């Protein structure tokens, strides 16, 4: 390793109203190195990389790039300095096409006025292929699923030929296959001398991509260590400041009556003859790779996707569900995968976000019962450890993981008997994850049935009572708890 780092941060400090997000943090990055940044939700990871990408100003501290002190004033400036970033809450423009998004702000020209479309398509297709994403680059981003959008965001960053890449939870929405591809790509780039700061809550990724790891806690740096020889347990200990008893707590439950039964559900071109039953007190997992149809299935159950045929029974009664309002009325709840798109109401404070799906409970004759609402909100943010624990804070000013907790809280207090969770722990740190699974245990005791889509194999294997594997719109396998292994799931899925 060369002696002088490519990039050095000295005593970086940043405060937001009421929050000291970064407290004199030192950090460095060598050429051809992947430096993993770990920390609990709200530890300051995103803030740190946003300062480097020019989207947030620092309060104080020095940034030294190639031995020279620089002030990064804007994202544009960061790009001139050779720094590219994949944002945690993706930054794509929905109405522009994939290729336009990838080349945004630097459309290749032919002569002066003409955009070189053929070249753009070709280049776009090349990067996308490397990531294993086979889509028409002309479609608007708005039509893509979250995983696809995440891949496009990564493609955009990779096609920049930058020297420093900042990847903020790039794999949070990806399934196994795409993640593997991304790891290969990241390692390939590193070998070409590119330096990468990599943020993730999936600790298993640390040794695969990283050489060094830095842990932040409450805005302070805990330590920087070489990845070799640090176990997950040590990392967890450093992140949360205590020992974690169990990462996936699970209590045995005997499932009760069927509460949701789906027969022969069909959405032309997306779902084919899907059959399954969910019982009281049961957690059913659904596993599938990119575009397997898992999200289409649950959207259909929640009235967000038209179905062509099939029957749905709730509590043994045949129902048709044509809107989320009806679905909620029947006792369903649905945590979507894309919290920025259809989960969180960003300009609204935390409290109204939490109670939004159950306003009936907190009102009488259309009048809100503020005290009751506040009590519930307080209970929920304590239970899920939303930080800062301020019900009046605008949801958009929370860290990604804390936003996810708010959306989770919304469905936990919705009173639903059938909860559909699409990647419920996306962006949530290990400590909070374990607490969320404790909450699942409690829900299950209250006879709630949970349908959980998860792309995280250890999680789904540990938490689900039964697992369905989906591929190209139909179930290809069903496993009982304990029967499945990572290999089996992957094999049935691909």
């Amino acid at each position, binding site marked *: 390793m060369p002696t002088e780092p490519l990039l050095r941060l000295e005593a970086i400090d940043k405060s*937001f*109203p009421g929050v000291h997000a970064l407290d004199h943090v030192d950090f460095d990055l060598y050429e051809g190195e992947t430096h993993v940044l770990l920390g609990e939700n709200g530890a300051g990871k995103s803030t740190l990389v946003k300062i480097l990408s020019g989207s947030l100003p620092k309060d104080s501290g020095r940034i030294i790039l190639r031995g020279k002190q620089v002030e990064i004033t804007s994202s544009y400036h960061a790009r001139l300095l050779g720094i590219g970033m994949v944002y945690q809450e993706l930054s794509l423009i929905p109405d522009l096409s994939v290729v336009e998004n990838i080349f945004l702000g630097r459309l290749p020209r032919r002569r002066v006025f003409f955009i070189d479309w053929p070249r753009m398509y070709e280049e776009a297709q090349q990067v996308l292929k490397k990531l294993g994403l086979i889509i028409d680059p002309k479609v608007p981003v708005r039509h893509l699923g979250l995983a696809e959008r995440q891949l496009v965001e990564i493609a955009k960053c990779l096609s920049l030929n930058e020297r420093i890449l900042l990847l903020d939870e790039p794999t949070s929405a990806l399934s196994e296959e795409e993640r593997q591809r991304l790891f290969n790509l990241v390692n390939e780039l590193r070998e070409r001398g590119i330096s990468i700061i990599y943020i993730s809550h999936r600790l298993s990724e640390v040794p695969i991509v990283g050489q060094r790891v830095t842990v932040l806690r409450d805005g302070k740096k805990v330590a920087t260590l070489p990845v070799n020889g640090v176990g997950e347990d040590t990392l967890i200990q450093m992140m949360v400041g205590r020992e974690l008893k169990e990462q996936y707590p699970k209590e045995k439950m005997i499932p009760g009556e069927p509460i949701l039964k789906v027969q022969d559900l069909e959405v032309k071109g997306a779902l084919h003859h899907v059959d399954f039953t969910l019982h009281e007190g049961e957690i059913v997992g659904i596993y599938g790779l990119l575009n397997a149809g898992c999200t289409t299935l649950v959207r259909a159950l*929640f009235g*967000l996707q038209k179905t062509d045929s099939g029957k749905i029974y709730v509590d043994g009664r045949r129902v048709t569900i044509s*809107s*989320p*309002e009806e*679905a*909620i*009325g029947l006792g369903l709840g*649905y945590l*979507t995968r894309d919290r920025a*798109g*259809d*989960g*969180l*109401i*960003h*300009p*609204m404070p935390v409290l*109204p976000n939490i109670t*939004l*799906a159950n*306003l*009936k409970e907190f*009102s009488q004759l*259309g*009048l*809100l019962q*503020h005290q009751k609402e506040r009590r519930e909100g307080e209970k929920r943010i304590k239970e899920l450890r939303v930080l800062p624990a*301020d019900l*009046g804070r605008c949801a958009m000013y929370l860290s990604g993981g804390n936003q996810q907790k708010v959306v989770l809280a*919304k469905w936990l207090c919705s009173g639903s008997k059938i909860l559909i969770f699409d990647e419920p722990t996306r962006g949530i740190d290990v400590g909070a994850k374990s607490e969320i699974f404790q909450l699942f245990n409690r829900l299950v005791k209250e006879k709630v049935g949970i349908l959980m889509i998860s792309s995280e194999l250890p999680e789904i294997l540990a938490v689900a009572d039964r697992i369905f594997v989906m591929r190209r719109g139909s179930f290809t396998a069903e496993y009982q708890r304990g029967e499945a292994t990572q290999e089996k799931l992957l094999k049935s899925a691909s």
Partner: protein
Amino acid sequence: MREKRTKVSNIGNNPESTVSAIASPRISLLMGRLVSMGGEASKKSLLKGGPLIALLLLIAYLSFASPHFFTARNLSNVAVQSSINAILAIGQTMVIISGGIDLSVGAVLALSASVAAVAMTYHGQSMVVGMLLALGTGALVGSISGIVIAKTKVPDFVATLGIMTAARGLALIVTGGLPVPSHKALLEVGAGLPSGLIWLGSGDILGVPVPALVIVAVTIMGWHILTNTTLGRAIYAIGGNREAARVSGISIDRTKIMAYTIMGLLAAVAGIVLTGRLNSANALMAGGAELHSIAAVVIGGTTLLGGAGGVVGTLIGAFIMGTLGNGLNLLGVSAFWQQVIMGMLIISVVVFDQWRRRRFAV
């Protein structure tokens, strides 16, 4: 805030002026109290207090610049002059928070006022019937806007633009293009508007102009809907993130229709007050009112993006506009220049607000 209040009321220590009850300082104090529920929240409302500070500075400046400004009579003038805009802007606030915009408010005001005036003057209807007709017309037209927007894919801007044109047309049809009551009717038949209606527009209670009381009532109602009802919650939610609101079981259609219906109702209320004040209604009254109401909302700190804001800021916004107009009149600035200044004001307020938000990251 207390400090400011005492200072202001010292300047205005005019014993006979119960009027100053409606003068902006006290209203803003009341509103300040409404905003600040709990300590943390009040700190935030101070941070957000840009428009209030602007209003107070404006009042302070005008009090020094013109001896006629800070008098009970003039302040009650300001309140009366701001009343139409304030009433409309309160409704507009709800629509804008819900992620929409209503360009039809001036036209709906004129249509409801015309319908009521025709019924009362030429068809011998009582004031109560006239008012109910006005409110019914306003609510009906508003709900039509809402339904069109909810059930078709026509954007709010376009739908209400269409409704605006149509409503003006209907108002012309109803009135035959003449003021109601027309001069001729007034002189020859003696048909006029009920005196009660005129009192609504230009009367007073213990020296407080009735339109000022209407503003207070409307503001409290708007504040109540937005903060204390599930409808208000739904309005913020759909404006903040429509898809997320829908997935949480909020009915976008119902919420939109309600917001536009309330807007229509308030346009009718403003129509009644304005008819009373002018002693007549006509199809072209309140021209440009839609833009003024939007300006008041924006000056008051509600963003056009939707999902955030409130009626208290809007009220202050309407008073800033009213006070500025009044002050410029007193200072002898021509009406033409007033428009130019008002336009600059709108832009600078928003620029300042954006700068403040970036600077202090609130």
